[in-house]
């Protein structure tokens, strides 16, 4: 009798063996409270040391948007896009979410190594936890965004409610990216050095402070690529349903849904494939 047969005869299971994909997801789902609670506590802890506490959740994005508004507003002069202030704020806030989903997701395993080494739970809860943390940070920014829209004289309308599915799609996309980058940084640590450059490049090419149609009007292929860039897609959708003079195209909607699904499925699948390896040093 082989050892495996002997183990099976007595009902023993192999330790650390990767579960089948769907039962893995099911187990992770059953423990979602852990990811949520951890996000909540880490968030509280990160605010606890500051005198202004939670106010920073509003102050930080407000300062950031103010700085960008000043710099790009002056720099761009008359070539500013139409309705510049809400245009820029939408871009900056949504971009901040996707950027930190990617950055924090990338360090969600490597940064919680102690936890990974001491407790066994479906590891996908860690990128999930880091995405939930970013959602907590996003909510006050969305509130600030709505205030900005009202202050700049945008007509409130039912189409604003479409922000909910748009943000939901963006969150799904962000989680997929977090799972992908979480595994990649475990296996290739050098990647963490490149992440700041990747996010910087994305910031400059995703139409945060300019409209790709105006800049790339003469280059149809480049324009198409710029318009299908997922970061731009979600920002453009959000602008389309809130700011007058902009509209969400069908192409944006399709691209937004496709990107979210592609990121979610490929991210969880790719992450799950390496489940047994996350405790490894390199």
């Amino acid at each position, binding site marked *: 009798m082989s*050892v495996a047969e*002997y183990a099976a005869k007595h009902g023993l299971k192999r330790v650390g063996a990767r579960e089948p994909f769907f039962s893995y997801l099911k187990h992770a789902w059953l423990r979602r409270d852990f990811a949520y609670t951890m996000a909540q506590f880490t968030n509280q802890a990160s605010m606890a040391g500051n005198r202004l506490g939670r106010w920073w959740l509003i102050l930080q994005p407000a300062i950031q948007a103010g700085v960008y508004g000043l710099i790009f507003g002056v720099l761009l002069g008359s070539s500013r896009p139409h309705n510049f202030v809400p245009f820029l704020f939408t871009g900056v806030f949504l971009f901040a979410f996707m950027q930190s989903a990617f950055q924090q997701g990338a360090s969600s395993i490597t940064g919680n190594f102690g936890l990974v*080494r001491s407790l066994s739970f479906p590891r996908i809860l860690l990128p999930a936890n880091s995405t939930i943390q970013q959602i907590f940070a996003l909510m006050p920014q969305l509130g600030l965004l709505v205030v900005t829209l009202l202050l700049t004289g945008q007509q409130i309308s039912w189409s604003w409610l479409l922000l909910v599915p748009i943000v939901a799609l963006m969150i799904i996309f962000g989680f997929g990216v977090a799972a992908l980058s979480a595994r990649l940084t475990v296996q290739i640590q050098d990647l963490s050095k490149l992440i700041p450059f990747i996010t910087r490049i994305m910031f400059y090419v995703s139409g945060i402070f300019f409209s790709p149609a105006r800049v790339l009007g003469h280059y149809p292929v480049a324009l198409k690529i710029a318009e299908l860039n997922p970061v731009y897609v979600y920002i453009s959708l959000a602008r389309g349903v809130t700011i007058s003079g902009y509209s969400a195209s069908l192409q944006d909607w399709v691209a937004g849904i496709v990107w979210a699904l592609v990121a979610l499925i490929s991210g969880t699948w790719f992450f799950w494939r390496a489940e047994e390896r996350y405790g490894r*040093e390199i």
Partner: protein
Amino acid sequence: MAAKSKPKLEDRKPVVIVDDVHVVYKVLASGKRASRANAGGGMFSRGLKLREVHAVKGVSFTIYEGDSVGIIGTNGSGKSSLMTAIAGVNPIEKGAIYASARPMLLGVGAVLIPAISGLKNILLGGLAMGYSRKEINASAKAITDFAGLEEFIDLPMKAYSSGMSARLRFAIAASRDHDILIIDEALSVGDQQFRNRSEARMREMRDNAGTVFLVSHSMKSIIDTCTRCIWIEKGELIMDGTPKEVVKAYNKFVGSTTVD
């Protein structure tokens, strides 16, 4: 140990089977001695290569129901690597480990979140182990009392001494009956009073048909609490037997004459 080691297959009910397990760490290092000659040129350190550290080299054993196993060995012998592998949190290079239930590891390295309070860490630890909020809230008081931290439970854990946080971690893990519990030197930081309390708890768990692994440098607690002892040295299993005889052989090896 040239031949592949094999675990013994008896007819008693096995709980953990460790079958020819190898743990290998890959470390990116230059492999040069630090000397003046090598001090320059470090900036673009060529010769950086993947070095392998073979921490566990083909260990095999079978643990049966009701065993409580002491694991001994000198520092760096591979005890902790083997224990984290049994807990399923350290990937193994070769071989297989089978267990009747998910082993719960309690080690000195077990960190939750230092910036949040002890009480919140109790909640978080419980959730990670898969318990519901309700179950944890019901046992939070008992955990706090067991750890002896009533006055400090609302303070952030970073304000705790190392003994205090070790006590809390043990209390969290020991709050429930685990079928298989691995305790990796977690008790060594606690004071005598806490040590007595936790040894009593370990015996209680063992009596409830639980299996306990205890990694310790205290030969006294091994002899006091274990029914079996395994000695590991340089990643290989040297001896497997009753605590008394293994500890005697180990003491001879390290040149110690007293029991503790």
